[in-house]
């Protein structure tokens, strides 16, 4: 331990003489790395949205030439009419881009990197150069994945879940180089994630400032900590599976080929053993940020801090034993259907605990609805719907009807968009001043929130109805089915609402870009927040503090009776505060 602390980054004791490339391109500063992830993943978020608009075009206007579709090659959309094989590339890559290159790096790559050292009082991560490698591997992975659209025969097309044998057989799927690109990209991304997790875990365990005990850490850090452990253990499984798939395609192995001793279901078990912890990776950091922001916006301590920690750890643990609920209809032993149903039902409980605690935080608070608070409360409202719809699927007999229908699509978008993305809008707006020294525009932020909330629900709520009707997923043309023809007006409506939803995001893009250059200069602590990061100037300097602060209290001491103001920073000393016990080794 002491050797590790001795190797921890030191405060800059000299004038910062890094070159431009060292400062901004190949930077080892966790804050710059976080911002690099921000730009990369916002780009992929936008691209993922563009793919979604094409999917919705085909569903809303089946077989019609798409406006602007003329720029696409004949192999994808001759005359602008989307071909079935392009449609399933769109569906596959929309999921892939959003899960792996948008939400995951936005929540983890951005906020774990940016917030952890700041919120625990460290100069930087434990391994700054490994941290830099984590970004550039993700960048390379993204480039490979993007390139897969442009290789002969186009991108992978077996869904983001890449089920074998369709994914392993170019003669059955039509995709060869694109499938190889997907596998390579995922292995690189897994590496990026693992490198990041190593940093986050080590930093949180070893580099907390004096007085920053485990139970004085903000919930955002707790969530990022558990997320990092999930990532460290889950991504290797995905990478292993992707390598096996790559070998089946290129080296003539038969891991997933039943004709030669392989097992088709092996892919699903491996993928979902990763895939379920992955979805908790995709929600936990958002939950953590929402906790910080709701406490701040309510000017009240988080209700039930210890229960919240218990719930976070509970979700992290239970997340490993529910993966079979993605496979109820797969042909696996039906007894497993029973066991996974039980564990899946149980995992609803810690999420319920969190929702009630957020409500408890708002109860009898002094609610300030700044833009982050709006988005955070929006998160709770939408996440609840997503979580509750999950209960239907967990009941396996019901799942027999709704599996692989739009009911699932509705559920996953309520938790990923209604949940994670609203949390991201909250988090980006909240920590924008810390990153860039400017404030985002408040009125535009509010309009963006309300319009997004409106259109989001108009797009995804009707999908529950479609799913109940039995509308299958990943279907190029629902009008092929007599029973689905009657739902075409609903598909049409969803498409129009989706176009409006996408258009609304330009408000956020405009706000973000404009504020970078012309935003109002931010005061040091615009949200009057207790976190350690707000004791630093905006933007925070390289190395963060000259001298690491000492922590005297928890992160949510808002409206403390007797305090001069309704907030009390973690590092401000009251006359009665005791100094923390000496650390095992000096942190600086």
């Amino acid at each position: 331990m002491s050797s590790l602390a001795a190797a921890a980054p030191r405060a800059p004791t000299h004038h910062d003489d890094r070159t431009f490339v060292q400062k901004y391109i190949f930077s080892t500063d966790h804050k710059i790395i976080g911002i690099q992830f921000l730009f990369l993943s916002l780009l992929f978020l936008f691209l993922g949205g563009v793919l979604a608009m094409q999917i919705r075009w085909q569903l809303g206007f089946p077989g019609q030439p798409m406006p602007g579709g003329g720029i696409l090659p004949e192999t994808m959309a001759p005359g602008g009419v989307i071909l079935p094989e392009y449609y399933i590339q769109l569906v596959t890559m929309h999921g892939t881009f959003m899960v792996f290159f948008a939400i995951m790096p936005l929540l983890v790559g951005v906020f774990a990197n940016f917030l952890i050292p700041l919120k625990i009082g460290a100069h930087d991560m434990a391994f700054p150069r490994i941290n830099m490698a984590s970004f550039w591997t993700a960048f390379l992975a993204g480039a490979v994945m993007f390139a897969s659209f442009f290789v002969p025969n186009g991108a992978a097309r077996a869904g983001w879940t890449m089920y074998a044998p369709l994914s392993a057989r170019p003669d059955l799927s039509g995709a060869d180089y694109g499938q190889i690109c997907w596998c390579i990209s995922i292995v690189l991304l897994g590496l990026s994630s693992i490198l990041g997790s190593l940093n986050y875990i080590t930093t949180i365990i070893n580099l907390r400032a004096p007085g920053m005990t485990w139970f004085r850490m903000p919930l955002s850090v707790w969530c990022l900590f558990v997320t990092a452990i999930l990532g460290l253990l889950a991504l290797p499984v995905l990478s292993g599976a992707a390598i096996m798939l790559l070998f089946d395609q290129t080296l003539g192995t038969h891991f997933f080929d039943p004709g030669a001793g392989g097992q088709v279901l092996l892919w699903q078990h491996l993928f979902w053993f990763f895939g379920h912890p992955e979805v908790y990776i995709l929600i936990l950091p958002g939950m953590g940020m929402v906790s910080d922001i709701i406490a701040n916006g309510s000017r009240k301590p988080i209700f039930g801090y210890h229960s919240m920690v218990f719930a976070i750890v509970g979700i992290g643990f239970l997340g490993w034993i529910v993966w079979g609920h993605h496979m109820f209809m797969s042909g696996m032993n039906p007894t497993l259907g029973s066991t996974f149903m039980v564990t899946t039902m149980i995992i609803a409980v810690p999420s319920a605990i969190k929702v009630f605690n957020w409500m408890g935080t708002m109860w009898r608070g002094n609610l300030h609805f700044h833009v982050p608070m709006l988005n955070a409360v929006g998160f709770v409202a939408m996440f609840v719907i997503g979580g509750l719809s999950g209960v239907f699927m967990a009941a396996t007999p019901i799942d027999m009807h709704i599996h692989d229908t739009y009911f699932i699509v509705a559920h996953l978008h309520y938790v990923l968009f209604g949940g994670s993305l609203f949390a991201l809008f909250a988090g980006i707006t909240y920590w924008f001043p810390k990153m860039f020294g400017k404030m985002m525009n408040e009125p535009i932020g509010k309009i963006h929130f309300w319009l997004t909330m409106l259109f989001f629900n108009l797009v995804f709520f009707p999908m529950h109805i479609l799913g109940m009707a039995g509308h299958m997923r990943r279907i190029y043309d629902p009008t092929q089915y007599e029973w689905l023809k009657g739902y075409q007006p609903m598909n049409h409506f969803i498409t129009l609402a989706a176009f409006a939803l996408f258009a609304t995001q330009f408000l956020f893009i405009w706000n973000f870009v404009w504020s970078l250059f012309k935003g109002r200069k931010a005061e040091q602590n615009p949200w009057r927040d207790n976190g350690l990061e707000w004791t630093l100037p905006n933007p925070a300097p390289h190395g963060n503090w000259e001298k690491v602060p000492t922590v005297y209290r928890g992160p949510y001491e808002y409206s403390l009776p007797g305090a001069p103001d309704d907030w009390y920073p973690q590092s401000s000393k009251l006359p009665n505060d005791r100094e923390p016990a000496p650390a095992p080794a000096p942190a600086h």
Partner: protein
Amino acid sequence: MRKFGLVLAVAAGVVGLGAARQSRTPVQGGTVTGKVKFTGVKPAMPKIDMSDETVCAKKYTTPPTDESVIVGPAGGLANVFVYVKAGLPAGATYPAPATPVEIDQDGCRYHPHVLGIMVGQTLAIKNADGILHNIKAKAVKNRPFNVSQPTSMTTPRTFTAPEVMIPLECNVHGWMHAWLAVLPHPFYAVTGADGSFSLKGLPPGTYTIEAWHEKYGTQTATVTVTAGPKTADFTFTGK
């Protein structure tokens, strides 16, 4: 699979060759003509049930049948691909024509059922039905492909290597099959219901002519072309 016997008959003839005054494509040159006959028991061709594809089903007044063995009224075997397998002068090159070869999907059947194309020539895949077909080309020497055509459209494809035969199939309509041969020269033909074929413009030499049928396999004949027409006949027997 039925076994079949093999009977081969060859007649000799001579065709005069003028010396080529222009060095353009040899329009004159030897010709090999012939007939492919079928003897023996004609297999019963099952009906194709297209009832769940109404767009196609209504194009037929009587239900369509499997087309893997089509015997004409005079005993000719149709859809036999006859081509020069060997014997062309070494180093001879034949430029691919600019006009494409067309294959159409009409009534959920490929038209033609058996076809030839030259290396580098464009295959224009048409979809007269206007409903989803996919064309899966299970090529080995060429790049295999699998493209869909959800509406009436034409998809062009070219081939880089000689290959006899590339199976084509539609996975949406499992009865749809066609056979495509890619050749580096233009000396090929597909027999009609009368079983006749004609290979024109061959320079003098000794050639191996092969006749290919999807069910009855291949037969070869050796023909020496000097002057005058040559004949090569083939007979396939069903049991």
